[in-house]
């Protein structure tokens, strides 16, 4: 059929459809005249129209929503049939399922393989989860079963048809009454759990649901325990979801609800839940988080060191003052200063008299309370500053990871007032001279002939050093904690790294600084692209070097593989540090990516076989390398200089090279 013909057919069709059905036959006869073909076409379409009924009337999504949602619908796991995917996260996927034996809906959480594999841990979790469930508290989710089907470990729980607190917060419709009610119910559940010696450890909006009848339920008791003290890859809350997005475009995962003691990785008790609940209360009241940061580490620093902005600008109303007081007391850094029990908190919440008299539905735009700007501006500046530093130091390189090591306890490291601040006391010129001298020293250790650096290169290093140690005139504001963490944690891997790199004849110092740089601020985690963290590899590279995908965050496996990879690339591309730098940059891009760049670079006049050639000739590199190397090379040296001079930078550790006996 041609478009013209169709136009004709349609004209007849529309004419007929405008008439009552009994008149259509005669209309058709009249309209088509001698054109039998037209009559047949239009006639069959009229019949089709009458028969079509509901055909395509329901949008496709009504029938196929589950296609978009996942692949597991209809699958049977033990006695449960999966109906729908409710969500997924670091702790596995959660499905709505039907219990075929009891013909009731359940929520089915399928544990990821890495958690399911550890029987001992699973039993611990099971014990705790059951204990919480056995409390039979109305605000605690009931667990039906922790089971196993073929290779799948699952947890079947009561199914809550409601919204998570995260969804409620996002919807922006919570009144202060409702907020106080929700927090009270959570506190009541915590009180019961704490009395039984159970700490939740992971109170956050995703773990709390409200049913349509207003009943609040805490989910996932025991889950946090399941994942803690895990290998680096499974540090809790590693899921970098974009859920929390602050006004400066900062994206954080769930680290925001961690207590200072969790941030320090020390033993936690029930007071950690009180803190997290305080964060939640703050967030619900203001629609913003009290502690944020551009990266995980920056947020942790914020938790450890910063005071949140006041809830509201106007605190003339007594109710606001009460809420402020409650929030303040839940968010005391020292847990001895917090509410000591959830009951204490509950009691004070009840005293917030008639919160509706505040006249605010917390997020209705007209009555929205603005955060006290004067007080928060510094916080924002610090945050922006922190973000910048971390983008430059951490982000300039591709690798990010924060070594989580159970033995290192950062709280044990001296913090607070540290006395040696040699670098800060120098003049600018002295600082540059210091950096120049130190750069030569580091270069020598790396087997590189020291070269006299130009001012641009020196200043580039200095920028990084300054940012790492910058404290904005306020001791402890930024930098020292994160450095402590990174170095202290890296330190424990030094013997392993030394062995691995020495065995491959790769300068050991590279082996040491590589993870220091790569691991700044983030724990190792795996995704389809590769391991992000200590010794980042592409999965195919890892495979090639005998590391299975699930082992990519295992330092024991990665350090030798990394040394092997670097040694191979050095044999192929050259042993000069110039090549090595590119090799390091190629880490997560595969060897192919460096070859052209290196060739290009070697055609450069004045090519010198050292790190700084890369920096000086970065315009010869491809776009990504250019960006990376502009930051990487100076950041690498800055980290080296800081690590080599712990006293000048208040690091509670010996120089890294001394650990490796360099």
């Amino acid at each position: 059929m041609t478009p013209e013909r169709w136009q004709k057919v349609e004209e007849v069709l529309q004419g007929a459809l405008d008439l009552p059905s009994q008149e259509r036959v005669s209309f058709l006869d009249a309209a088509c005249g001698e054109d039998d073909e037209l009559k047949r076409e239009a006639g069959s379409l009229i019949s089709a129209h009458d028969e079509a009924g509901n055909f395509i009337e329901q949008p496709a999504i009504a029938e196929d929503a589950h296609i978009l949602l996942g692949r597991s619908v209809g699958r049977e796991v033990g006695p449960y049939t999966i109906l729908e995917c409710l969500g997924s996260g670091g702790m596995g996927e959660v499905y709505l399922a039907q219990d075929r034996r009891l013909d009731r809906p359940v929520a089915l959480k399928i544990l990821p393989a890495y958690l399911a594999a550890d029987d001992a841990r699973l039993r611990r979790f099971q014990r705790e989860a059951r204990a919480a469930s056995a409390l039979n508290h109305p605000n605690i989710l009931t667990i039906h079963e922790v089971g196993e089907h073929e290779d799948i470990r699952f947890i079947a729980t009561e199914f809550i048809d409601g919204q998570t607190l995260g969804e409620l917060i996002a919807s922006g419709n919570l009144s202060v009454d409702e907020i106080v009610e929700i927090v009270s119910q959570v506190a009541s559940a915590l009180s019961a759990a704490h009395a039984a010696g159970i700490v939740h450890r992971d109170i956050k909006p995703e773990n709390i649901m409200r049913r349509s009848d207003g009943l609040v339920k805490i989910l996932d008791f025991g889950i946090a325990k399941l994942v803690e003290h895990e290998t680096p890859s499974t540090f809790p809350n590693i899921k970098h979801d974009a859920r929390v997005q602050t006004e400066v475009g900062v994206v954080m995962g769930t680290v925001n609800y961690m207590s200072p003691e969790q941030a320090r990785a020390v033993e936690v008790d029930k007071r950690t839940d009180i803190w997290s609940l305080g964060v939640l209360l703050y967030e619900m009241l203001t629609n913003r988080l009290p502690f944020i940061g551009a990266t995980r580490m920056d947020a942790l620093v914020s938790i450890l060191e910063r005071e949140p902005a006041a809830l509201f600008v106007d605190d003339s109303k007594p109710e606001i003052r009460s809420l402020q007081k409650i929030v303040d007391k839940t968010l005391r850094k020292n847990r001895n200063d917090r509410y000591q029990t959830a009951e204490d908190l509950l009691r004070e919440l009840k005293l917030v008299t008639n919160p509706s008299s505040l006249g605010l539905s917390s997020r209705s735009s007209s009555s929205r309370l603005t955060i006290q700007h004067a007080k928060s501006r510094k916080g924002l500046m610090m945050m922006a500053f922190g973000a910048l530093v971390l983008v430059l130091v951490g982000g300039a390189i591709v690798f990010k990871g924060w070594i989580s090591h159970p033995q290192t306890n950062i709280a044990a490291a001296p913090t607070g007032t540290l006395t040696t601040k040699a670098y800060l006391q120098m003049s600018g010129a002295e600082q540059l001279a210091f950096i120049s001298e130190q750069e030569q020293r580091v270069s020598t250790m790396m087997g590189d002939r020291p070269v006299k650096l130009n001012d641009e290169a020196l200043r580039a290093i200095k920028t990084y050093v300054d940012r790492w140690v910058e404290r904005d005139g306020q001791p402890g504001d930024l930098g020292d904690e994160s450095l402590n963490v990174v170095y202290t944690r890296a330190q424990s891997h030094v013997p392993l790294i030394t062995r691995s790199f020495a065995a491959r004849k790769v300068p050991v110092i590279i082996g040491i600084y590589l993870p220091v740089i790569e691991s700044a601020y983030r724990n190792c985690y795996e995704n389809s692209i590769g391991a992000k963290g200590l010794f980042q590899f592409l999965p195919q590279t890892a495979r090639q070097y005998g590391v299975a995908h699930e082992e990519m965050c295992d330092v024991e496996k990665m350090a030798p593989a990394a040394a092997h990879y670097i040694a191979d690339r050095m044999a192929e591309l050259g042993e000069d540090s110039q090549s090595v730098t590119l090799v390091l940059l190629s880490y997560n891009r595969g060897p192919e990516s460096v070859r052209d760049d290196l060739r290009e670079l070697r055609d450069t006049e004045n090519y010198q076989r050292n790190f700084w050639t890369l920096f000086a000739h970065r315009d010869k590199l491809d776009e990504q390398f250019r960006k990376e190397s502009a930051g990487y090379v100076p950041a690498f040296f800055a980290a080296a200089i800081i690590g080599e001079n712990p006293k000048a930078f208040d690091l509670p550790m010996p120089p890294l090279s001394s650990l490796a006996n360099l």
Partner: protein
Amino acid sequence: MATLSADNLTGLLIEWRAGDKTALDKLTPLVYDELRRIAHRYVRRERNGHTLGTTALVNEAYLRLAGTKNIAWNDRAHFFAATAQVMRHVLIDHARRRLYAKRGGQAQQVPIEDVSAMSEERADELVALDEALHDLAKLDPRKASVVELRYFGGLSLEETADVLDVSLMTVRRDWRAAKAWLYKAVNGE
């Protein structure tokens, strides 16, 4: 998820409308994420017995992606159109893989679990509809757009009229003719 500025989104939408195929590629992951969200909410509310307009959800998705209050009508219309097209691609792709697997294609490439969620009948139906819609587009592009927006994009008649910038009456007539035409093409001789 990547975040887009309003300008970026608008830019991509304009490029896409101007026929730049790579723009849709860039849009797809973003839109797809939103589609999943929509599907999720859809299923939830459906179960609760609420009916709900997909339009409202798509609107919300747009707001979230564009992150702006000043929405040019054009952008929104383009976004709706892009959403419908991505939905169509996703479903048809799925249906084809389903049929491919069933017809003994290289099983290795198509994990059965991946495709079993869609019934074979449904896959057949979708593929037939898609082919018929291609044919219809050659005869009468606007009618094909109406169907794409309504069926794959979930838009109401009114919204469809809005997006295509035609009268409601026109959309009604287009819809009934297209529906008859497609029904015949899919089920007919």
